[in-house]
């Protein structure tokens, strides 16, 4: 490509720099308007919120399974921690008149609680990986579930209720945008490249100076934080949670969305969560056959597109311009001097 074309493509991209923030902002504004003026049918709003929560979960798990190449099957455990902490806060701690204002803090507290536990799970990942780490995360999720079942204050196996329906479309939208932004920022930083290096070749990464422990701690903490956030939102949408809602089936659901949309891709996570949530809704009339059709779909997916619809590919508009056009910008600059 000649220099003038390189330069014009760089300039054009620089002009479009504001496209993504503007898009996200308008989505958020739209969600506010829809919520305020009841523009959409409540059922449609409900589905939109499920999609949002699933997007957060999928992004969160994709960081570990898709980008880092580990295999966590315990994400429902982090979700449960976030759900229970946030619910406990809004029901038992925060006085009723303040609930609407302090709701985001309760959700954030749930995320932080999950992040602390995520930190604990990061430690076994120093020693083991692959199938063995999968067993560790599975065991962790079982501990969380049976732990909650044995805490009477949290309702034990009967579950916990009394939450108001505080999760609204704008709030879900807000957390989706935040998770998208933070996880994208992480991926396009030295830590994100560390995460990718761990997937590609952990030893080589370590030998290129990557502090793999630091990277794993950060990845697990961020991932479990957002799984906890999703849990808190889920609890305040359903207004009832019980330990069984966070069992291995829930973890499997998240796995399916990651591998359906595409591993190691943000666009894939958005797509996977949306398609899967809509599919489950649309196939509802099939009743019990739904659970035959969907696993069948998975088998087909693994046979024909094992990395998912957008596996290891990213939508250009999600990649920071600095990264997407790195070599072109460098060439344009060299040509100028």
């Amino acid at each position, binding site marked *: 490509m000649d220099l003038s074309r390189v330069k014009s493509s760089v300039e054009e991209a620089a002009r479009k720099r504001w496209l993504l923030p503007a898009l996200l902002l308008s989505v958020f504004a739209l969600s506010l308007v829809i919520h305020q003026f009841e523009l959409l049918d409540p059922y449609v709003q409900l589905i939109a919120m499920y999609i949002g929560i699933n997007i957060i979960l999928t992004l969160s798990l994709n960081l570990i399974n898709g980008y880092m190449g580990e295999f966590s099957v315990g994400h429902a455990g982090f979700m449960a921690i976030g759900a229970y902490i946030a619910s406990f806060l809004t029901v038992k701690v925060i006085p009723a008149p303040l609930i609407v204002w302090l709701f985001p803090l309760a959700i954030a507290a749930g995320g932080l609680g999950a992040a602390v536990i995520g930190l604990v799970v990061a430690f076994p990942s120093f020693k083991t990986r692959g199938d063995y780490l999968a067993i560790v995360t599975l065991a962790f999720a079982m501990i969380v579930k049976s732990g909650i079942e044995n805490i009477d204050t949290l309702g034990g196996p009967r579950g916990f209720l009394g939450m108001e329906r505080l999760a609204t479309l704008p709030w879900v939208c807000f957390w989706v945008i935040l998770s998208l932004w933070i996880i994208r920022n992480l991926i396009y*930083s030295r830590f994100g490249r560390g995460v*990718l290096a761990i997937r*590609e070749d952990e*030893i080589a990464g370590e*030998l290129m*100076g990557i*502090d793999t422990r630091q990277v794993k701690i950060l990845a697990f903490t961020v991932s479990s934080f957002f799984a906890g956030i999703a849990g808190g939102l889920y609890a305040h949408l359903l207004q009832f949670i019980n330990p069984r809602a966070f069992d291995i089936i829930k973890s499997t659901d998240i796995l399916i969305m990651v591998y359906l949309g595409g591993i190691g891709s943000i666009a894939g996570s958005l797509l996977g969560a949306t398609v899967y949530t809509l599919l489950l809704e649309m196939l509802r009339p099939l009743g019990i056959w739904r659970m035959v059709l969907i696993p069948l779909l998975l088998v087909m997916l693994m046979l024909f597109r094992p990395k998912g619809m957008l596996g290891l590919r990213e939508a250009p508009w999600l990649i920071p311009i*600095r990264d997407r056009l*790195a*070599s072109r910008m460098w060439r344009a600059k060299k040509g100028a001097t």
Partner: protein
Amino acid sequence: MAVLQAHQVTHHFNGVTAVDDFNLTLEPQELVGIIGPNGAGKTTIFNLITGVYRATGGTITFADAGIVGKTPSQITALGIARTFQNIRLFKELSVLDNVRVAHYARARYGPLAALLHREGFRREEETIIGHSLDLLAFLKLDSYADELAKNLPYGLQRRLEIARALATQPKLLLLDEPAAGMNPQEVAQLMEFIQWIRNEFHLTILLIEHQMHLVMNICERLLVLDFGATIAEGKPREIQNNPRVREVYLGGEAQT
């Protein structure tokens, strides 16, 4: 002052001695070769120096600091970089990102700045991208910057591995069989290339190689290993005429 000093380094794998009483001193900008038959413990020595294995006994000193017990990433940050016998690039990443990854230890921003993409983060990232592309251009790899590493031809993958190692800004470079799988013409080019990067980057180089032609021509000093023990050390010419080395390499033909 020596760059690297290995003193009585010993390593056992479950009772099997892989390296026995290994001693080595590398002076600044020296080019030293390690040769020996398969299984002699050559790569094990690289793994001991870079911290992949922890030496069972002995000391390794780099830039006046003991490095036995440090993690590989800490040792890399101190200034030792390496390549691998069987190429270990980050295959699904671009050529540029392979080199950017190696800037990890040099980048001056923390996790919070990274998550929020703060101003300091941006400046540092732009510097890293600039360095990486300059380095690729220097090694004539810049036209492949956006290709996936796995799509490069074999010879360029070898060169990219060296570029990635150089990106960590090492003082000591360890090359594990850099000429493996190359034809005589490529080996000749590689010899020039190795000497060129040594001069350009002021490197001390330690290399493992099977191709005698390469080792004899560019190394100033050679170590010969057999069953984990150093059986000879000296200038290439001395090594060529050493009866024990001939015995190991030629299977006792020296006696006849």
